[in-house]
């Protein structure tokens, strides 16, 4: 089970049959009645009643995963089941809306899970707009029972999308660096988990330092930096087979890798005579092209989602700042002009923001700015907040936070999630200390 690999999951989900359930009212008639957006999110999340799916016992677990996902978004407030008045026995029939209005539910989720003769399970759900008394969406899925968590995430994504108008981010995974051991001899190994922490497993054994993993848009591969053969170099790692491969053959350090949006190239820094410049490598042919040629440090490159531009960190102006250049290279233009030092630019998959790490005074912050440098917004700050990674919908970020070291002991290092308003900041639980998160794209269905 723990070895459930993406290849198999993807195959299994090709067999998932998604059926749109016919609603009593056309959803077009009710569209817009119940709406909330991430940017406009107020302090009042939508009260939503998520009933246990009837039928198979996994129905209750599916409801729990959906509720936890939606709650985590900060846009929904699942209502305590103890308050429910109507007990749903047939999710195919219209609910008694007055019972749900009485407990102030704006939205209601009902569903069922039914074992099929062929060993698969049929999961169906309906989302009701309680005030309007109308169905907003409804779908049915067939899959192997083992995939029930994925089905729950897919349903949560569907609900999120129907209510917010944005794609969800629940059917995703996170690769990160699991940390353990003393501060001066830290063990750092790659680990992967579902976005909600389930299905956790380690990808490297910890014998050598593993740093800065980043997902390929095709999901099976991660590019990262490792001291596996003594020298710090960029490697490709297949997360299913755990086969690892040195990317290129360079005499000096390669680091700060990141895939292009089409997955065909990896852009990274290469050190030569102490100086770091940015190069792009074609993953198939391994041909390499130099993008910067400057005596300053140039690192942390990140492509725009259309692949046409690259944001990067450079101290060519005397301190670390963010620059944007064409994907073919060049001098680039500085875009960060606030107080302090700016680094690790990461372009949103939607293209509207660049996330960054900012150092000012005694603290490190995670923030976002428009690609032209305007509209800077700080989302989180502490002794050390670093390394933002975007959810595929470009509306949520993960990063890591390190507490100060004290008494010769390393400070705790934890993953955090925040939305682009900065209002919904929460820890992401991991089995050990954790840093360098990398959020995957949505898993193909």
């Amino acid at each position, binding site marked *: 089970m723990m070895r459930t690999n993406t290849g198999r999951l993807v195959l299994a989900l090709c067999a998932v049959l998604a059926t749109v359930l016919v609603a009593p009212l056309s959803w077009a008639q009710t569209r817009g009645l119940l709406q909330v957006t991430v940017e406009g999110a107020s302090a009042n999340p939508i009260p939503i009643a998520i009933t246990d799916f009837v039928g198979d016992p996994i129905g209750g677990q599916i409801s729990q995963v959906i509720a936890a996902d939606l709650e985590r978004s900060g846009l929904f407030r699942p209502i305590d089941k103890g308050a429910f008045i109507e007990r749903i026995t047939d999710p195919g029939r219209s609910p008694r809306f007055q019972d749900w209005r009485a407990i102030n539910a704006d939205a209601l989720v009902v569903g069922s899970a039914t074992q099929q003769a062929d060993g698969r399970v049929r999961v169906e759900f309906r989302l009701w707009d309680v005030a309007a008394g109308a169905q907003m969406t409804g779908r049915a899925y067939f899959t192997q029972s083992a995939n029930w968590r994925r089905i729950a995430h897919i349903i949560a994504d569907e609900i999120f999308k129907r209510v917010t108008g944005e794609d969800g981010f629940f059917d995703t995974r996170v690769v990160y660096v699991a940390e353990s051991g003393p501060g001066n001899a830290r063990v750092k190994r790659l680990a992967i988990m579902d976005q909600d922490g389930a299905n956790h497993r380690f990808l490297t054994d910890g014998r050598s330092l593993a740093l800065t993993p980043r997902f390929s848009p095709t999901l099976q591969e991660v590019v990262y930096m490792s001291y596996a053969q003594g020298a710090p170099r960029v490697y490709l790692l297949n997360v299913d087979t755990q086969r690892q491969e040195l990317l290129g053959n360079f005499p000096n350090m390669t680091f700060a890798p990141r895939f292009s949006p089409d997955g065909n190239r990896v852009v990274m820094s290469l050190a030569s005579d102490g*100086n770091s410049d940015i190069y792009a490598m074609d993953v198939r042919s391994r041909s390499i092209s130099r993008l910067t040629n400057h005596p300053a440090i140039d690192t942390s490159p990140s492509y725009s989602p259309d692949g046409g531009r690259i944001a990067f960190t450079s101290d060519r102006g005397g301190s670390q700042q963010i620059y944007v250049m064409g994907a073919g290279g060049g001098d680039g233009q500085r875009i960060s002009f606030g107080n302090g030092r700016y680094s690790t630019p990461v372009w949103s998959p939607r293209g509207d923001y660049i996330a960054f790490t900012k*150092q000012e005074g005694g603290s490190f912050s995670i923030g976002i700015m428009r690609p032209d440098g305007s509209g800077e917004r700080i989302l989180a700050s502490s002794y050390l907040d670093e390394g933002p990674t975007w959810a595929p919908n470009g509306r949520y970020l993960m990063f890591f936070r390190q507490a100060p070291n004290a008494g010769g002991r390393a400070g705790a290092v934890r993953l955090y999630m925040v939305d682009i308003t900065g209002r919904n900041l929460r820890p992401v639980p991991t089995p050990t200390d954790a840093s360098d998160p990398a959020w995957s794209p949505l898993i193909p269905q």
Partner: protein
Amino acid sequence: MKLSIKVLGAVAVLLLAAACSSTPGPEGATASVAPGTPGHFQQVAGDRVFFETDQSTLTPDGRATLDKQVAWLKQYGDRYQTFMIEGHADERGTREYNLALGERRANTVRTYLASQGISAAKLKTISYGKERPEVVGSDEGAWSRNRRAVTVLQ
């Protein structure tokens, strides 16, 4: 995998040897370590130089230390194949920038030693960024000791 275990084993033996050679004698006095050993290098020359925040230029103290390293390496350096210079940064920078900064610091030392006549072919560099602090602490006292380049005899 087997190969790397062997290599680790060999490194452990070397480290053990280095530790023994620099251990004071049973008398507890400042027993001198055997000339030409890594412990001797640390005692006589000093194996590391320190840098200012976000800087990779040598301080006067750093230059004085490297001059002593040069003298020692000219006398005993033939015993070693490689002079590995490890560049490090404090934790007040991002991981990737600090890898670049550590590399720049290591290269500063490499360039200086080479300019003073140490065989460039034997001088190698590696950056650990902020991954391997000498002192685990979050104040200037710890950071200043972590912003360093260490010459390791191999």
